[in-house]
């Protein structure tokens, strides 16, 4: 996932460059570039977030927690993991019907005519993988 997110980020950089060069030098902008780059951004964020969750490196305020002795600290770490799994499952569960609906009605994006279900599905996909990644992390400890 981390590799996929990084590759998507670099693809967005390349697409942006092609769009700017195309518009500026060849008077031929890529009409769908902005839209697709935004879909890529959604992909980068929710796929790379899986790697961040797996390593437990999301931004948090851990100064107070670090003052605690080892046992309560580990309990709180476990609690944070359980909360993360619960939230990720809930978001996935709420998102899936919407994505299904988009797919059934075959809604397309304005510029690229891409099925909207694809970029929208990146949100539940990311959160489902986050739930799995955190569960694996907790099980290892």
């Amino acid at each position: 996932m981390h590799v996929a997110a990084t590759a998507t980020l670099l693809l967005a950089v390349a697409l942006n460059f092609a769009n700017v060069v195309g518009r500026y030098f060849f008077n031929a902008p890529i009409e769908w570039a902005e839209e697709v780059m935004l879909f890529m951004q959604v992909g980068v964020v929710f796929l790379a977030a899986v790697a961040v969750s797996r390593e437990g490196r999301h931004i948090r305020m851990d100064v107070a927690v670090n003052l605690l002795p080892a046992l309560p600290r580990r309990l709180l770490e476990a609690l944070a993991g359980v909360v993360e799994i619960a939230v990720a499952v809930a978001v996935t569960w709420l998102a899936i019907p919407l994505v299904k609906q988009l797919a059934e009605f075959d809604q397309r994006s304005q510029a690229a005519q891409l099925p909207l279900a694809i970029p929208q599905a990146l949100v539940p996909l990311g959160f489902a993988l986050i739930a799995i990644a955190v569960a694996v992390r907790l099980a290892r400890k």
Partner: protein
Amino acid sequence: MTGLLLVLPFALLFLGIPIYLILLLTSLIAVAFVAGMPPTVVQTALFGALDSFPLLAIPFFILAGEIMGQGGIAKRLVAWITSVIGGVRGSLPLTTIASSEVFGAISGSSVSCVAAVGRLMVPALRGAGYGERFTSGLIASSGAIAVIIPPSIPMIIYGATAQQPVTELFLAGFLPGLLIGAFGALYVLFRERRSGREHVRVPFAWSSVWAATKNASWALGTLAVIFGGIYGGAFTPTEAAGVAVVYAIVVSCLIYRDLDWAGLWRICMSSAQLTAQILVIVAAAGLYSWLLTTSGLPQLVIATIKGWNLGAVETLLVFNLLLLVVGSFLEPPAAILILTPLFLPVVMSFGVDPIHFGIIMTVNLSIGLYTPPFGLNLFATHSLFHAPLGVIYRGVLPFLAINLIALMVITYVPQISLVVLGR
């Protein structure tokens, strides 16, 4: 409802729950138990928050900043500054501040700046006998200049939230950024005079300035690409950020050859993670902010503040204090997304310019980046340079004091921000 949305996050924060989870959990509880909150909003708001072209500048600027910091561009910029001001009293700390100004002009992220400038200046400062407390305080606070000097990630988010042009916010940030650097420099000079230390001086010579300029010309070209591109009308800030990435890759890997392809890939991997760490909070804060707005909190805030019968001066003071407190807990992106819809209508009713208020928020939240005990720059300084947190806390105090004075000046003299825009 409003009480739940405000109290629960605070409790969870102290338990060390990641910030994006706190915002999501609170929002989910609101959706589940409060009538009239449609569950579909979770997906639409999470997706919609990131479906914004100005925000795309954030991953691009993060990536460009990391490549420039590690690929030899930052190193040459610092060498160039040293050749110009290396001969004055207190040259090393002054170079640190000036380097943060210049690095801030090619990057919009404070932690990137702490890492890039710190890696180059901390060994030099330590070697010259500057104490750990002063060195770490200087590095942690100077890094915050990077978000005030355009380009700036908080300004991009403010522009998207308040629907203000990012190009104007960038222009308005120049003088406040220079003012804060000047205040820091005055403090350094005052301190040097009192300490009477031996000075590290690189004698000034036009020949060495010329040599360093030539050596740094590709690095300085980054400024031309970003600002020439934006204000020459060639591209938007987001496109400029993307082009800056390509430029930084070409210069670092092909011209300077300080970075090999494996190193570049490593930087891209860590930048993707950094992007996720910041933007997942932005997505969650977008949902949380939507619920806060729907719950009627903005109207409540406006009515409450109107009820106090405060003038513009007092209201700005109250908002500054609130922003300082919130900014020391929350990252600027989340704070801006949540507080802009609450504060902006109030200050605008007093005739405060929305661009000026964006600068006030940015400067204020940049101070939060190194306000003990939770500022992100403090942790970055701690983990990069292994200074004990307690020492860093004491080290930033003098810089905190002078930057609060600068904040007041920037708040109450709107011309500093707006004169560049001709308002």
